[in-house]
């Protein structure tokens, strides 16, 4: 077992809420673990389950999808599709041999820089606890 495992998280953040929330964490100088790599998407509903599976296939320890809170979607209903789509994907991860805890869907608004940092910190902590993936 590695002494210190630094997990890698791929984060798909919607442009209007969560990406702005991540920016706000920066503007507010809130530090959080550097384990996340952020990919900007217009809406969390843009995230194809393929992106998630592909990230895991390439070696990601965790995948985060963050979007606007239900009811706040810039495109009115994109995040509802996200919610349903990934409720379906989640059990499928078990089938692929990927711990469901490695996948997270969170709602982070543009004013929740603090929440974003907490999500990343908590997710990193969880992934460290689970340990590296056994491929």
């Amino acid at each position: 077992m590695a002494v210190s495992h630094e997990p890698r998280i791929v984060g798909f953040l919607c442009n209007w809420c969560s990406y702005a929330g991540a920016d706000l964490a920066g503007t507010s100088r809130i530090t959080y673990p550097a384990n996340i790599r952020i990919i900007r998407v217009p809406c969390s509903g843009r995230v194809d389950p393929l992106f998630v599976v592909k990230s895991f296939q390439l070696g990601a320890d965790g995948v985060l999808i963050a979007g606007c809170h239900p009811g706040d979607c810039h495109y009115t209903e994109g995040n509802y599709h996200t919610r349903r789509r990934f409720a379906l994907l989640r059990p499928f991860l078990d089938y692929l041999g990927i711990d469901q805890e490695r996948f997270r869907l969170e709602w982070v608004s543009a004013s929740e820089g603090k929440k974003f940092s907490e999500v990343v910190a908590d997710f990193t902590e969880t992934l460290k606890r689970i340990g590296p993936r056994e491929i």
Partner: protein
Amino acid sequence: MARVGVFVCHCGTNIAGVVNIPEVLEAAEKMPMVVSATDNKYSCSEPGQASIREAIIENNLNRVIVAACSPRMHEITFRRALASAGLNPYLLEMANIREQCSWVHSDNKEIATNKAIEIIKMAVAKVIRHEPLYPRQVGITKRALVIGGGITGIQTALDIANAGYGVVLVEREPSIGGRMAQLDKTFPTLDCSACILTPKMVDLSQHPKIKLMTYAEVKKVTGFIGNFEVEILHKAKKVDHLKCIGCGICWQKCPEKVPSEFDLGLGKRTAIYIPFAQAVPPKPVIDLSHCRYTKYLTWVATGQEGKKPPECRICEKLCPTAAIAWDQEEQLFTEKFGTIVVATGYQTYDYSHYKEYGSRDFADVITGLQLERLMSASGPTGGEVTRLSDGSHPKTVAFVCCVGSRDQQRGRPYCSKVCCMYTAKQAIMLKEHDPEVQCYIFYIDVRAGGKDFEEFYLRAIDEAGVIYIKGRPSKIYQDGKKLIVLGEDTLMGRPVEIPVDLVVLATGMEPSAGADELARNLNISYDTYNFMVEAHPKLRPVETHTDGIFVAGACVGPRDIPECVAQGSAAAAKVAALFSQDTLTTEPLIAVVNQARCIGCLLCVTICPFKAVDYQTTQDGRLIAATNESLCKGCGLCIAACRPKAIDLRGFTNQQILDEVAGLWL
């Protein structure tokens, strides 16, 4: 072959203070297809942009990475820099190494430097897949549709028309004027409502740029900003308004009397009618559900069973211009518009759910709006406030605030905003009508936030001697000729029981019937109460999420007259700003369909929140999806839903995002 240039910004010490820039540059130079990697103290400054420009030309770059702040900050700035170097502005990708790196990882410079390198690596992988994109220009139909002819719609239409653009105002009632026309006086100035409204109604009807369509409804809306196509249903008036001169003989002589909607059932109108004396247009319509001749025709058509109704046709016989048109049918017209303003207003809450207040069973329990009609000089009683039960003048009057407002149990938790002030106004007015009247007002809180409102409320107490009792009455019941109002004075902490002659319920506002259906037709959002939802409650109060469609007035939420007028003017200003351009530029970051791959499942059509995906048939007879560039907002919902991956989002293609992910492991 892509030639990528990487420009790393120091942002003073904001980035350079944490991230080791030379190390980043060294790593960037080794990334695939990168031909140059340079740094800049402030990339966004003029010298910074100039150096990017020069490097693009010197190194013949065709893809650019700016590793600096968030794209939400300066993407537009650097796109312009690319354009000034003759490069397509959409060949830029920003690597966010400030907000999402140096500022949040200042505690560990080594880790921050590594992360910055990886962020740039991902951006390089993505930018290689960038394609030049071109915004498109679409024309605008410079003609606005205003839905609703209340004070908001009137103000909107007049302002747009005065800016020099054509307007069509659609009103479903036979006359414009809306709720304001029903009011007697307005708070807090006690202006006569009709005196300030009716001149505007006349202005509107005579304006050369405004086409008024009363007794008409919007049925279907297609198209997009600048190019809407709207189906408008003209209901059958059975009167040719081109011939009618509005002399009034028909409605004076019509023998069929029915309760007047305008007078809220307090007065009568005839079957051929104008809703009120100052109606615009001052020309009647025939209410077919009550017309005697229509009843006769139905009797003939259904086999002449029962008693023969009179054939009547008195209006036709008396009309001096032969304007009665029995053969007139409802008609559907399609018109083109550039923008649509929704100003459908409100109706008052139906208090039949309030069993404790008699559910409309007591003749002398009326609503605030009914009292307006009783107080109005042009109302059914000629301005005399009398009891409906016996015609006597009430001497004690109880007002009950918040009926259908601030009531969780009735599903109306919101404040209707105007009731506190209009009850104060009505109490003052009643005292003016008859100095012997004593008014009691049951309230929860007096909300007098507005110019001169608090003073007006104090005037009700000081000058009109109104007694305010804090508490919602628990029951109203009839006792002989009196109505007994039971409640609790919560400030005194004791029960109260007041016998009164008249009870006035300050019924709250709710959106007009059919607001939800209209919103669905227009594809704009509405809330759980059917109020329209604005694009942003603070900063975009009259816009909606559908470009080119605006909302104003009480259809968005409870508003008083000045707010409605202000919103009407605001919407008109938005429309005029749009019409001042000859063409609209559309964002090229939108969904496009690969026709060869599309299997015609049309899941994208159902999933699109903007009705931007439609279908068409190819020459070989296949059904395929097609996106509308002007309607698409580039959310990408359809792309994630597409099974054969036939639809893709420019700027965020599947390949680009997958490459971005893969870039992390390069």
